[in-house]
């Protein structure tokens, strides 16, 4: 029994921390927020040089074959620095490809993802705004002209980093059930509409599919048989996102704590007042509890048959921790926390925006019970 980072994980953690500090401090994040380029190529390539995009991919396809709990280590530090890279979405897409794809499909796509030359993302959410089987209505249907190919018609919403992606893994409905298609983002009939987000450190886009032709060899796995694996990969994605939220929440608490140590009012630093220090202590408890749940869920998605309850516990607590820490970071700063220059606003927006990605804390809280048969 050992519930802590291995030596390798501790090294990975400090590597990411150094990278964030030297390559992309918050001043640089702010520049990239304003950039029209969705993913900074230089930053992405440097991350690839450290093997991060290859981390959890299978070794036979150019990956490092490490575990999802190792990606959790990266994600937490990336979240702490609000690193504007699609590391988590890309890794989730690669996981889905690796699990559902046949050897040819894996060999075609995964090596380029591992080197960072291709970015992949899962196109799941639709107008129904729910991460469940019933939320999938984008159609994959036989062509009217009777050709061998299928046509995709419909729209996906809030696809993470779709505007930067080379490969879309489209969750679609066939008569047999839910299937996944690997669709190059530049396929004819695919329209990508970037969204203007509250949290400008992230990128999302709507993707419209209008008579997009896909062949049988673009389907990952059997027709209509993909949902169970999609759900498991969305769970792994939610855990890594939760790790980003834990990192962001921890950073927000740290920023507020450091401010409370220097800001003086009524002749004392405000950190001496229990109204401030007790709130910071409560936030710390929220972060630590979420962290314990997230680390365990990161292990569970690779080791347990059914990790749903653990994933939902992690996502609901991490969402709440980040949302509360972001808000209170502003409150503890007072008016200065409301300014554009203050970093509190960046964490507030991250917490607010990400709480509902891959399921709100309320949805996950409900699933904590339903996954136990309650």
């Amino acid at each position, binding site marked *: 029994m050992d519930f802590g980072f291995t030596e390798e994980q501790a090294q990975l953690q400090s590597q990411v921390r150094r990278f964030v500090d030297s390559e992309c401090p918050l001043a640089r994040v702010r520049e990239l927020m304003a950039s029209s380029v969705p993913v900074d190529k230089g930053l992405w390539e440097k991350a690839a040089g450290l093997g991060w995009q290859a981390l959890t991919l299978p070794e036979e396809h150019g990956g490092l074959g490490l575990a999802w709990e190792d990606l959790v280590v990266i994600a937490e530090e990336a979240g702490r620095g609000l690193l504007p890279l699609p590391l988590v979405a890309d890794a989730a897409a690669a996981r889905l490809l690796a699990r559902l794809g046949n050897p040819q499909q894996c060999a075609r796509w995964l090596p380029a993802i591992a080197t960072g030359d291709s970015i992949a993302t899962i196109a799941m959410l639709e107008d129904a705004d729910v991460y469940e089987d019933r939320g999938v209505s984008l159609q994959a249907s036989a062509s009217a002209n009777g050709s061998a190919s299928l046509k995709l018609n419909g729209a996906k919403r809030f696809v993470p980093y779709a505007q930067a992606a080379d490969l879309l893994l489209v969750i679609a409905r066939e008569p047999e059930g839910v299937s996944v298609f690997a669709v190059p983002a530049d396929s004819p009939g695919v329209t990508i509409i970037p969204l203007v987000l509250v949290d400008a450190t992230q990128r999302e886009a709507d993707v419209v599919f209008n008579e997009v032709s896909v062949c049988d060899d673009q389907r990952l796995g059997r027709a209509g048989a993909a949902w169970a694996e999609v759900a498991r990969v969305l769970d792994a994605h939610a855990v890594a996102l939760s790790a980003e939220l834990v990192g962001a929440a921890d950073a927000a608490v740290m920023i507020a704590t450091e401010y409370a140590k220097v800001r003086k009012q009524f002749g004392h630093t405000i950190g001496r007042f229990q109204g401030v220090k007790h709130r910071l202590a409560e936030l710390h408890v929220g972060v630590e509890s979420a962290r314990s*749940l997230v680390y365990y869920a990161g292990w569970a998605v690779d080791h347990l048959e059914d990790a749903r309850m653990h994933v939902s516990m992690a996502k609901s607590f991490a969402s709440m921790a980040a949302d509360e820490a972001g808000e209170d970071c502003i409150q503890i700063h007072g008016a200065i926390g409301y300014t554009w220059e203050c970093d509190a606003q960046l964490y507030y927006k991250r917490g607010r925006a990400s709480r509902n990605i891959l399921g709100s804390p309320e949805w996950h809280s409900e699933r904590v019970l339903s996954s136990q048969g309650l």
Partner: protein
Amino acid sequence: MNFTFSPEEERFRSEVRVFLAEKNPNRGEKIGSDIESSLARLPQLLAWNQALYDKHWVGFNWPQRYGGGGGGLIEQMILKEECAKDHAPILGLSYMGLAWVGPGLIKYGTEEQKQRFIPPILKAEEHWCTGYSEPGAGSDLASLQCKAERDGDHYVINGQKIWTSLASWAQWMILLVRTDLSAPKHLGMSCLLVPMDAEGMEVRPIKVMSGETPFAEIFFNDVRVPIENRLGEEGQGWDVTKTALANERSSIAEVTALQHNLEDLKDLARRCRIGGRAAIEDSSVRSRLAKLDCTIEAMRLSGLRFLTKQLRGEPIGAETSVNKLLRAQVEVEMGRLGCDIEGSAGRLLKGPHGMDVGAKWQKHMLGWPTTVIGGGTPNIQKNVIAERILGLPHDV
């Protein structure tokens, strides 16, 4: 990360299970592991303590030369977890002696004191209570005023203590007193071991809101104890007391007890009806149950992270306050939620109308301060976290 146990550890777990199947007097019954329910069944419990003692499982990590187990942290966790899962009674009947007195004796006691006091604690032949809080010294314990003055080879104690549990059951008290009025407050205290039958001691029970009398006030009027009953040096009382605090029982067994209570709440929610349908279908009940579920699981996992730090030889300190604060929230919420699920029956103190056996949730609703206020209030835990973990300054 690795959540598996070594073959030796698994063998130990089997050994514990075999032991429990044979010796657990609570087997098959849901009897609380709290002190009161335990004391009500004394003969069985003395047999239980003897069986544990024969295995060297009382004082599991205490030195073997005084009768302790000399055991490791993982085995201790396994033992506590298995006992809690099996609804076994507390791991050693001299509860306060094990929690508060032994750790200080082991670190600060003289050889004579260790020989004299440790074995009777392990064998449950002697019971202890604590004399820490005073009417004017609660959260600010170090401002206590009860004093002991030297008179030849004796101390003479005068003053008052309060919130002492099990005072009428104990033969001994571990007492924190002021021995130097001129020293800074943390440095002027000493720890004394006082027999409860000493002349000049008066015990008055305190009735609490549940109607029970779990605590007492103790009055000292020229109580004389020999100087060899001092634990640690004169002026070292604060350090001795902190040792006991640092050795608080592992949270693993507490988490298992909380899990049992949560399962009971879920059962209750299946049986009771709110607004014409099963309470378990009520969205507010569901979200409260889910929050408890997440919190208890977070406590379990954080406990494993702290244990891992200890196993790796890293110091652990203030971070355990995170779980103490959560435990306080969970204890209060469980009583509230149980009574809320029962609806109108939730305000019955006795009676048949749909309430849980023995007014379980009402007792919880009226009894949480024993665990929540004792050993450091939530507000004090927040101070500990803010100051020792976050590095914020002391209060104004």
